[in-house]
């Protein structure tokens, strides 16, 4: 049963600390998306990659957020320095551009910045 995995599932940190979230897309998928979900803003697209190349990161605060795909099996989202307003659930999703265009979501990382 192929699925997207994310680590950690929960993260509590203090303001100013660096946070790294990891995502393993479904094997063979060539698109990866990072979303942030909050009560106020709902689901926001932060960045997405196709064939490991960043295509759009316009939704991401550039000064503190960065997203990378070191290889086809790993995507990372980093926040440095973290702020309380970054508290949210961060989802990774993957898909296949030559398939049904459906995005398959990971379980999310719940981030709390104190």
């Amino acid at each position, binding site marked *: 049963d192929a699925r997207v995995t994310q680590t950690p599932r929960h993260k509590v940190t203090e303001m100013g600390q660096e946070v790294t979230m990891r995502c393993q897309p479904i094997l063979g998928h060539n698109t990866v998306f990072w979303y942030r979900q909050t009560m106020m803003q709902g*689901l926001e697209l932060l960045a997405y990659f196709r064939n490991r190349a960043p295509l759009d990161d316009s939704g991401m605060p550039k000064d503190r957020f960065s997203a990378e795909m070191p290889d086809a099996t790993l995507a990372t989202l980093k926040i440095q320095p973290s702020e309380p307003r970054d508290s949210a659930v961060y989802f990774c999703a993957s898909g296949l*551009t030559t398939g049904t*265009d459906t*995005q398959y*979501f990971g379980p999310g990382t719940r981030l709390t910045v104190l």
Partner: protein
Amino acid sequence: AQTVTQSQPEMSVQEAETVTLSCTYDTSENNYYLFWYKQPPSRQMILVIRQEAYKQQNATENRFSVNFQKAAKSFSLKISDSQLGDTAMYFCAFMRGSGTYKYIFGTGTRLKVLA
């Protein structure tokens, strides 16, 4: 720019009954895809159903079906024989068919199935 509107923040339905969740969208595109995702308390986003805009036939998946009205830009989700496990947030999503692969989500409808 495309927008997706879910006008019902919360709904409830009795177990075994039928409920319809509304979604409207705005686009000038002719080729696009529409999706319904379910997010139970576990937070996992689960695909419920998918519809290609070029298909006239409404998509169905077991107890879930859609009423896709392209001219009206409406994409409602019908859940038949509601079960307690259907209790969740339901999100409608739009994706352009021109290869951007980006979803635009609605704000969600919280559905509670009552025993």
